């Protein structure tokens, strides 16, 4: 039966664009993008390990630190989390899902952003302490570690644990994707209410064809009726997707009581940040034993109803059998649902969304799109329950991540201007140490932990006092953390955008040089003079413009947050005041840095 599609969305939707839309709808769109970046990563690894150990002459020195970082922030500004969509680390991760058990649940104690925050802090420190930007060899090691970590973690744990709980790059994208103009979201929410199968979160299943070798074994061992083989002995009849709206629109959905209703639903649909749904997306049907069905006769699964019923029964008992949804043996996953446990029907915003488009591919009604939105619209929904994330206003771990990313934008840029060396020398003298990693460790603890803690605590206390709010200090600090994202993003844009604008063309001579070493002469000798794509005189004004925009948007978001919380304009302004002071201070700090002379040194102490 033909699946009815949604009406063309009245909203601006990337999927409706002629070429881009067709490409993104293509089943292998993401894989093809990942394959391209995987090939680039392979070149980076090769050149990082075996190429010339001078960053400007090495693909591992140029592509990650100049191009990738710059394009990431530009993509976040003008589109969304494109780089998670094309992330090359996902290919080994997918391989791991096929080869390794991937059946453990991520430990509850770290089902939050704290681990990722720790990794991020270590990375920021290591970047300066070991001059990663100047070492292609170390850069290659970082990339290799990433591949191994993604493979190992997602080979052990269910879902996309690496992306959601570990990947520091992903966290950067998630946080700054909150100001992006695109969002993966449902087109017609009322249609989701009638959806019986919720493929966007569960994935889409079809009848598994019986492999010849298994059929042969079954026939040979028929008399013995081996349980493990009998579990795979089912009809090869195809399993069509269920009639999309068998009960008619508006009638109670067959799974509605399980999926949509808090208390009975899958955890992901409840919006709990530290919970996982009981779905084994990649393995459940791929290996019947992992679905807990070994030794059982498979249920007759030729009808869609049995599929639905079996899902239903396990949803009603979420604690049973590791809360796995019972996918009848014989069904195989043909399209994963969201592995970050964002249930489209209740998904809000871009937090934790990798733009993997699995939900778009899985939805049988074509009811999920990549839609244009007001870039700050997400900040109006801080108290709303986000599927798979929870209420942002209650996520202290997320707020801590935001504060670290905001202050890291300034500390990271500070590492490139001359005064940082004077400060390092002074600090080394005060501490009586000559180890630069130690001195930088102290600087980072002060700049990314102690200073933000003091400033935020003071601002939260003042905000409460001025507005008469009864909210706790932590709750106030958490709520207003999101107001600082735009100013932080403005600084990241200014910094990484600067590197990209002055060095975008350096990829050409480095590639020429790389190819020349293999006997391929491309466009003559390497044109080492190629570098900038804009005149030098544009840079500081452009940086200041981005920072100013960040400040203005931060103040606007802060005001909206305060207004929503306090109602009256006067109280809102009083509540905002301390946060506005921090935002303006950050702006002037950033503007001061931009006017400082740049310097780049390696080890300076000792």
């Amino acid at each position, binding site marked *: 039966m033909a699946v009815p599609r949604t009406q063309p969305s009245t909203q601006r939707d990337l999927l409706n664009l002629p070429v881009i839309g067709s490409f993104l709808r293509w089943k292998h769109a993401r894989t093809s993008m990942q394959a391209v970046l995987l090939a680039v990563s392979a070149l980076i690894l090769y050149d990082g390990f075996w*190429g010339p150990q001078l*960053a400007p002459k090495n693909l591992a020195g*140029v592509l990650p630190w100049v191009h990738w970082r710059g394009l990431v922030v530009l993509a976040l500004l003008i589109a969304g989390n494109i780089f998670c969509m094309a992330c090359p680390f996902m290919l080994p991760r997918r391989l791991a899902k096929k080869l390794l058990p991937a059946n453990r649940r991520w430990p509850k104690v770290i089902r939050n952003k704290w681990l990722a925050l720790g990794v991020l802090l270590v990375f920021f420190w290591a970047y300066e302490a070991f001059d990663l930007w100047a070492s292609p060899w170390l850069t290659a090691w970082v990339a290799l570690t990433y591949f191994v970590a993604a493979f190992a973690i997602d080979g052990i744990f269910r879902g996309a644990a690496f992306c959601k709980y570990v990947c520091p790059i992903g966290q950067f994208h998630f946080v700054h994707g909150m100001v992006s103009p695109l969002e993966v979201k449902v087109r017609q929410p009322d249609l989701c209410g009638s959806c019986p199968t919720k493929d966007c979160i569960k994935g889409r299943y079809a009848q598994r064809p019986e492999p010849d070798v298994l059929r042969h074994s079954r026939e040979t061992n028929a008399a013995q009726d081996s349980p493990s083989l009998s579990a795979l002995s089912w009809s090869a009849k195809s399993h069509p997707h269920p009639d999309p709206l068998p009960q008619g629109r508006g009638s109670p959905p067959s799974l509605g009581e399980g999926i949509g209703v808090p208390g009975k639903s899958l955890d992901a649909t409840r919006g709990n940040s530290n919970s996982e749904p009981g779905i084994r997306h990649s393995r459940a049907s791929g290996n019947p034993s992992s679905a807990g069905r070994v030794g059982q006769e498979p249920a007759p699964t030729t009808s869609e109803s049995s599929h639905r019923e079996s899902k239903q029964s396990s949803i009603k008992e979420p604690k049973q059998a590791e809360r796995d949804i019972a996918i009848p043996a014989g069904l195989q996953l043909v399209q994963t649902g969201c592995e970050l446990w964002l249930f489209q029907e209740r998904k809000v915003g871009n937090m934790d969304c990798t733009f993997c488009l699995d939900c778009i591919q899985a939805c049988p009604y074509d009811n999920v799109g990549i839609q244009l939105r007001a870039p700050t619209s997400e900040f109006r929904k801080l108290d709303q329950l986000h599927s798979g994330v929870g209420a942002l206003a209650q996520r202290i771990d997320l707020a801590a991540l935001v504060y670290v990313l905001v202050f890291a934008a300034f500390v990271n840029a500070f590492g490139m201007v001359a005064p940082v060396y004077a400060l390092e020398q002074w600090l080394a003298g005060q501490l009586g140490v000559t180890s630069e990693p130690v001195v930088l460790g102290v600087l980072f603890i002060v700049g990314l932990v102690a200073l933000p803690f003091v400033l935020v605590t003071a601002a939260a206390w003042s905000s409460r006092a001025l507005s008469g709010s009864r909210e706790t200090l932590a709750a106030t600090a958490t709520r207003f953390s999101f107001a600082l994202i735009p100013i932080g993003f403005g600084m990241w844009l200014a910094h990484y955008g600067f590197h*990209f604008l002055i060095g975008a063309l350096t990829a050409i001579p480095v590639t020429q040089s790389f190819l020349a070493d293999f006997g391929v002469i491309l466009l003559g000798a390497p044109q080492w003079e190629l570098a900038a794509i804009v005149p030098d005189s544009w840079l500081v004004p452009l940086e200041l413009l981005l920072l100013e925009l960040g400040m203005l948007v931060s103040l606007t978001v802060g005001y909206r947050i305060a207004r929503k919380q306090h109602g009256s304009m006067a109280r809102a302004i009083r509540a905002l005041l301390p946060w506005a002071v921090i935002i303006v201070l950050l702006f002037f700090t950033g503007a001061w840095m931009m006017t400082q002379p740049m310097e780049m040194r390696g080890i300076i102490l000792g």
Partner: protein
Amino acid sequence: MVRLGLSEITHNARTLVVVLIALSVALVFSACGPRAGETGGLDVTIVSISPEPAAVGDAEITLQIRDMAGNLVSDATIQVEGTMTHAGMQPVIVATEARGNGTYVTEDFRFTMGGDWVIIVRATFANGRTAEQRIDLKGVQGEMDMKSDKGKEGN
């Protein structure tokens, strides 16, 4: 007779595949050789940098160049590139003037910022052969260093 269940078979097969993939990757990487990156074939000495110490601004670098046999090179076209240790910076690329006796002096060279520089000397010989040598030049004084030095001199 020991019979393995399907889950055990697939588990062993998967382990084998993982090991094979790991070995293949290791084999590929171990087979890779170093990439030259155009270096080698020259013996370059920086005779002097004026002003001394090297600082942000115009500078004149005097080089003495020998081939790998130790012979002074006087008939090559020498290009000097100054670049930073951070990728993506605009390099400074200038020609040189031959002063005889293997000595070459840069024309219009400029240190555009303080910090660690790498001086890359490229030679093109009369027969079309090219060679290259890199020299680290650490601690080019920035504007703050220069102000600090002036302050000390004033005291």
